[in-house]
């Protein structure tokens, strides 16, 4: 039987905004997210494109970025985060907390400070740190 999923009102609002920004329908965005999740949850052998050069594979219980990703999309820094992960050879869809070390976060803060006020960037960083601590 299919597993039911609950979506918070705030998450739904963000999803709608994200869909609007991407020029896609809400249904399309949800379908894409589900496809991505199915692809991620499949055993490694079945995956079409396994993530390259991952330091910490998702197979050992790697974490989902979804909750913090939604927030980062909302704040406009998600693409920057993903690019920084890629520059370290990491896959943004699943990772282990040790991949995101203090050096990575310091670098991310400096990158955010290039385009946002420092105060804003620091608040975002605190949110990310809180999320990461929840997984330790």
């Amino acid at each position: 039987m299919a597993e039911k999923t609950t979506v918070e009102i705030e998450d739904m609002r963000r999803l709608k905004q994200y869909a609007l920004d991407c020029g896609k329908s809400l249904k399309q965005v949800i379908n894409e997210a589900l496809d991505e999740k199915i692809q991620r949850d499949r055993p490694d052998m079945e995956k079409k494109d396994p993530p390259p050069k991952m330091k910490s594979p998702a197979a050992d219980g790697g974490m989902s970025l979804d909750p913090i990703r939604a927030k980062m999309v909302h704040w406009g820094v998600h693409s920057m985060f993903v690019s920084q992960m890629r520059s370290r050879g990491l896959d943004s869809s699943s990772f282990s907390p040790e991949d995101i070390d203090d050096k990575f976060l310091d670098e991310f803060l400096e990158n955010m400070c290039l385009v946002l006020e420092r105060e804003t960037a620091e608040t975002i960083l605190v949110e990310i740190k809180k999320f990461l601590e929840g997984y330790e």
Partner: protein
Amino acid sequence: MKNNNRLSSAVKGLDKLISGSIPRESIYVITGNSGTLKSAFAFNLISNHLRSHPKLFGVYISLEQTKASLLRNMEGLGLTTPKNLQISDYATLKHRLDDGDMDYGSMILKPLLDNEGSGEQNPLKKPNYVILDSLNAFYVLMARTNEPDREKLQYLFMMLREKGITSFFIMETDPREEFHEEFFLVDGVIDMGIIKSQGKFKRYIQVKKMRSAEHSLDQYVLDIGKGGISILDVLLE
């Protein structure tokens, strides 16, 4: 008596061109060839205005020039940056991180358009003024993930107006081309150029369009000194 509240008072002599003031919550393009002081004019206008209105907030989005280079140029022209003007340096970010897949559209537009709420829920600060330098570079970055078209641009302008943001888009143009599609979508067009007058090359500024404001259509001579930009007299043939 000079009204300090008026945006047009932020550049010496600009009141001569526009009676009343530059309407807020509107979209403007500043056009011209390279070297015509488009960036300096926008920077001068907004930085002076913000300096006398510390509760307001502005963002200068630099897509091609690094913050260091921009500030060096502005300081060379006697222009300094007030605390309430954020310089968003996408040029350096591009150099540091660009892997060809960066979604500049959301990075640039989210902080401008999606800033309701405050604190942890939404730390983004709503700007009153935005300068985007340049629209040409913005098109190039957007084209990598999304083909820009008139409808999208119209939507962006509508959103900026709805948010109550007064926006200046710097646009490099060829002086031989009189009209651009953007001119129909924006509320104002300020053109800057270099022209030979009475045997000398001079910089000029001309307000070609400004909705809801009376303005001169004459070209005025522009001067740049230690205190920034000044607009002098009507350019003579």
